[in-house]
């Protein structure tokens, strides 16, 4: 993420509340949450639906599809597929939608745009 450049106490003088209020940060926060929350809920629901089926719908899960391959095995393997799929999707989403914005904000902070006592700070003090 390229944060090798900053000094350890670069963050010490930053007014984080001001950064938090910027439209740019709010956008990053929204992009992050609007991906991870629905995705977390979706995969948890899908996993527990699978566990409930294995627990309470044994007949359905035991239905043979091809040879000895049954519904239960296919749904189980689909859990692997969805886990790998969500992983790949999140990585590509982060690379495209999150990392560039995070890097921009970091550069601005490192450029001392949000230091405490800077003239940009408004009515709060």
């Amino acid at each position, binding site marked *: *993420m*390229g*944060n*090798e450049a*900053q000094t*350890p106490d*670069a*963050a*010490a003088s*930053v007014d*984080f*509340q001001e*950064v*938090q209020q910027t439209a740019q*940060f709010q956008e*990053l*926060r929204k992009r*992050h*949450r609007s*991906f*991870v929350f629905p*995705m*977390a809920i979706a*995969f*948890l629901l899908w*996993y*527990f639906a*699978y*566990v*409930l089926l*294995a*627990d*309470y719908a*044994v007949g359905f*899960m*035991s239905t043979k599809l*091809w*040879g*000895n*391959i*049954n519904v*239960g*095995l296919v749904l*189980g393997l689909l*859990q*692997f597929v969805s*886990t*790998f799929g*969500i*992983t790949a999707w*999140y*990585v590509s989403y*982060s690379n495209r939608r*999150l*990392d560039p914005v*995070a890097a921009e*904000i*970091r550069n601005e*902070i*490192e450029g001392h745009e949000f230091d405490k006592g800077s003239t940009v700070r408004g009515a709060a003090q």
Partner: protein
Amino acid sequence: MSAMVPMVNVAALKDTTLLNMGIFALFVLVTMVIVFRASRNNKTAADYYAAGRSFTGSQNGTAIAGDYLSAASFLGITGAIAVNGYDGFLYSIGFLVAWLVALLLVAELLRNTGKFTMADVLSFRLRQRPVRIAAALSTLAVCFFYLLAQMAGAGSLISLLLGISDWGGQALVIVVVGALMIVYVLIGGMKGTTWVQIIKAVLLICGAAVMTLWVLSIYGFNLSNLLGAAADSAKNPNVLNPGLQYGKTETSKLDFMSLGLALVLGTAALPHVLMRFYTVPTAKEARKSVVWSIWLIGLFYLFTLVLGYGAAALVGADTIKSAPGGVNSAAPLLAFHLGGPLLLGFISAVAFATILAVVAGLTITAAASFAHDIYANVISKGKADAGTEVKVARRTVVVIGVLAILGGIFANGQNVAFLVALAFAVAASANLPTIVYSLFWKKFTTQGATWSMYGGLAAAIILIALSPVVSGAKTSMIPGANFAIFPLSNPGIVSIPLAFLLGWLGTVLDKRREDTAKQAEMEVRSLTGIGAEKAVNH
């Protein structure tokens, strides 16, 4: 070939003891050399606890897989599939899916806001002392349960793989394994521990891959044929269907739901997994670590599906159950059947390396939590210098190592298999709610954190103590007594929602407000990585 009568001469296993020991000794020798070389640069606390934050995402991801794929998941899941069929596979899926919680909600944010331990993150914007103490206690509890389970499991592995069945001989081997672990962690710190885990993960996954291809080739690379042979060998077509293990009663069905909840929510809150995210230089590398570990762990559990049914078809469930080590012997017996003494020796050595690697990871996590959270931040109130802190951590390693050896010797032969499930339940109840709340809920307060952590920890432990795993059943730890008023063997379904509820309740009833500047700082840091701990340059 698939109609072959299972014939594995269990007695012949003993003849391979020397070979097993030889291959394991070779592993120890190679890793020792690497640990010594890697540890020459161990100077600061960040070197000792976090390997100078210098591992790459792929290295760390491999180490995470090495840390996570314990003997319980290699030998245990293969055996569970061999004996109980589909339900063993069902069990492995929870262990994999759980990594999405780590990937989406925890890994990067934690890397950006913490330094060495889980408590660093939890106490970031809340009141230091109470939150740090609670987080350190739950870290130590999880590590203790997990460690005891691994060391107790070592005893049954020894009887299986080395053919040593007397108590004194097993105790001696436990002492040797424990002492080796202390040397690795003491000298190598996190760097040494990581290398042991990486080497072990590569050996384990390669070994499992070879065996998987071997089994598949016997059945013409046709999964359906393999499944058919497993069902024929078991004389029970239901090994291909769910329900053989968890579907027995309504209680066992509910129990599996509870276990599933603990597995899925516990993994991303295991302190020794969380600590691994500090060994990489940036949040992006932490993300890469999880991606690597998801691929490796997923691939490995797909192998165990083939190995489990392969063991059922080629070795037979009855032979497995009657072998020393019982269900755990499925993978070693299959190795012996396929590749004779040499493959068995290799797989046995990998199993020992597995115990060594997992125990080392747990020990350094517990020692870091004691030295960094309790000693440096609570007892000496942040005034201790880093040198003293690392000295305390090293002493703690020795104490924990000795405790682990004693625990392993005395728990040997006891039925303590529930301890791993308990560790996951405690992590999911005591740690996860507070991790999620403090990262995502602005209003979360210190009181919410302490209620949730102590409430979740106490609920998980008390419910286990009152469950059939401790008393009231033939398979209980104390079969003679009966105070099992809680029907489930896994407390997760009660303790996890309770801990989330307590975190919310403690917060809304809290009259104190937390520092909003600190909250802003944590949120900005967690998402942007500004001010995150950097890699150490040597």
